[in-house]
């Protein structure tokens, strides 16, 4: 009984990672996002085809085309052809 409960919680914890925002780079070359989260600016480098989870509690992000956007932490940023779309 306890084992199954533990397993269920582990599974839920594993799946719970869907709470952060994620960025997907669909391009063939490396793209960079500038993320401002919790008072610190950092560069998020995405290799070709990479998906990265970031920004769990809201952040500002500078997209490759220079646009500045705010994220609540549940969106998916998709970069293709050098342009980013927020879903």
């Amino acid at each position: 009984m306890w084992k199954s409960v533990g397993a269920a919680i582990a599974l839920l914890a594993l799946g719970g990672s869907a709470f952060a925002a994620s960025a997907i780079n669909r391009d063939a070359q490396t793209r960079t996002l500038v993320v401002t989260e919790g008072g610190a600016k950092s560069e998020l480098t995405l290799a070709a085809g990479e998906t990265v989870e970031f920004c769990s509690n809201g952040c500002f992000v500078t997209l490759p085309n220079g646009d500045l956007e705010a994220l609540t932490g549940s969106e998916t940023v998709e970069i293709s052809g050098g342009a980013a779309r927020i879903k």
Partner: protein
Amino acid sequence: MFFRLLRLILVAIVAAFGQPAFDASAQAIGHGAAELIADQTKVIQDLTSKTDGLEKKLNDPDQDDAGLVDIRLQLEDISRAALTSALAFRQRLTDINNRVGVLGPPPAQGQPPEPEIVSSERSALAAEKAEINAVIAGAQNLSIRVNGLVDKIAVMRSELFRSVITKHYDLTDALSPQAFSDAHDQFTGLYKAVSSWLSFAVKFKFQAILAATLMALTLAAVLLIGGRRLFGRIFEADPTVEDPSYLSRLSVAFWSTLLPTLALGVFFASAVFFFNYYNVLRGDIGSFLNALLTVIGMVFCVNRLTNAALEPRLPNWRLIPVATGSARWLVGLTTAMALVLGLNYFLSVVNEKMGSPLSLTIARSSVATIIVGVILILMGLLRPFRAADGSWRPWPAWLRFIAIGLGLFTIAATLLGYIGLALFVSFQVVVTGTVLVTAYIGFLSARAIGEEGGFADTSVGRWLSTNSSYEDTALDQLGLVVSIAINLMIVLVFLPLILLMWGFQPGDIEAWAYKLATGVTIGSVTISFLGILSGIVVFVIGYFLTRWFQGWLDGSVMARGKVDAGVRNSIRLGVGYAGVAVAGLVGISAAGIDLSNLALVAGALSLGIGFGLQNVVSNFVSGLILLAERPFKVGDWIVAGDVSGTVRKISVRATEIETFQRQSVILPNSNLINNAVGNWTHRNKLGRVDIKVGVAYGSDVKRVHAILMDIARAHPMVLKNPEPFVLFANFGLAALEFEIRVFVADVMNGSVVQNDIRFAIFDIFEEEQIEIPSTPRAVVETKKHEAWPIDDDKIEAEFAERQRLEAEAAAERERLAKMKRRGRKPDPG
């Protein structure tokens, strides 16, 4: 008339729904991008000026811990607001980007220029985008600044705490005669303030005071009397009870602490409320009264708790088995400690309000901490337990050392001048100790309820067992759930309470709770307890909904629809599995889990599943096929391989068959699908029973045939159609063999029919002198020579013989000895 009404309703509906749509479109037109930018710029400006104000407050050197936490909470709000305001541009930015995409890139050098209208639109869009980006950049800068301030507050708070704890005061200044005169002045001031307030109150507000006090008293009385009425039996310790159970002792301790304290708290709170309402309190009197009432409440609570736990008057009801005298001492010491600290707190409020010199504060605090230290040492030195031999035993070593150590530490810290530290420690000892003891009592009662039969002993358990159909095991399981819930509640109530006592501010705890609820990030994994909890709750609700629907469908719909039992079973099972699956899926999605995250794991596992779980999966699919195709149903008599019996239960993996010897055989479903299964009762229960009988050569076979036919026809359970048949089966070696074949309506009754017919044949053949031959077997008498025991047997036999002889010899000797003794006896004559 009716149509007019209908039209009116229609118009109203159209108006109701049309209005917002119209408004929205009007807003979209009126509120252009420029207005959006202007609005949000203003919002960010407001937030920035608010931040400026907070930063100014932050630099105020007199800021205390609570003030810092308050500022931090406001800053966090500002940070969120900045983000929200930046979010407002998302739609507009997307629109602009789409539009720019439609316009295409500007013509390169040498290409024909684009029309004026296109280039002007492009430049307008670019300008708007730049403006929006500027506003968002403002929000971003604000957010960075606010976060920096929040970090600064964390540093300031830890520094503040350190400075309070480590500040060194000179005791010699404080304990000079000057302090006494200061104290005297202080008391005169307090007396004056209170007496002037009293004369004012009596003169002008006497009725208001009377009314407020009466109202507060009434409220408290309602609570206390109502509580006594409700929990009367478990509220008071009954001295006549010889040996109260641990649980009843606990509940008495708990309720007799909680209810009076609550009543007192309500009385004080409502008194202050009504005094405020009638404007009775004036100047500093309000804060004095607040402090005094808080102190009284705290001392009362500590006193009630120790009294309840130690019960100096009723040894039977004591929670901790200390001796009576020690119990009295402990109650007194604990109350004294709470009283000293409470008085110190009250005086500190008075000092603060009346602006008394520092030396007085130091003197007061040092006296209080030294008294608390002495009390702690006294408590540690107490020998509360009485051993069986009458000697007194001290506390367990760890408790003793902690108490004495804390006492010595407090006194030493005071004497060395670290009064802030000493005060902090002694305050924590009393308050944290009280909270910990209460929580521990709660844990103990949860454990007692969780024990087997513990819940049934409680008043709720007794009520449930008389008023509901719960059985003992169900009550026991309920008790387990209750005990887990109590444990959880204790953690939820007391953990924040202890954290509060240790100097964390409500804001801290609120922020942690918020973080815990929305998600803790560890590496790249975010765990959200709220999500997990809501997922579990949704699943449980879905599960019970399914059970209820299943029961309703089975019990009301299908039972009344005269649906066949097997179909009912199949449908019920199918609905159950589908419902649980749906509840699981909904629960998982309610927990916010993206199932696509599991796809990776599933992909990796699928190979393993393909090999390892092949059998399980095949059985599972077979079970679904069995439910759908229904080659047999519950209650059927089936033969599958070697197993023959009644089907009891069809589950997803296996089917339970009960043989006629009442052995349960669990047969994997794939066996039933892949192999031939005989079902005696598939379409109907009709079945044939064969009975063989032989008659001697020389009998009248025609007569035998007729007799057998009559017997078969005469039996009431034998069907007329298809009619019975008697087969002249064989000219056997010893007999002419016949076979009676009869059909019965229910093949389950076959044995009864066979028995009846065999008895009838036997009786009638005897009457008619028809012989049933039995094949004689040759009796061969062989002369076997007696088997000589093999060597081991021989040795054993010899050993046994020797033993027997020895035993006989011993018995003989005994007999002789007895005779001798008897012979030596002096002759009575």
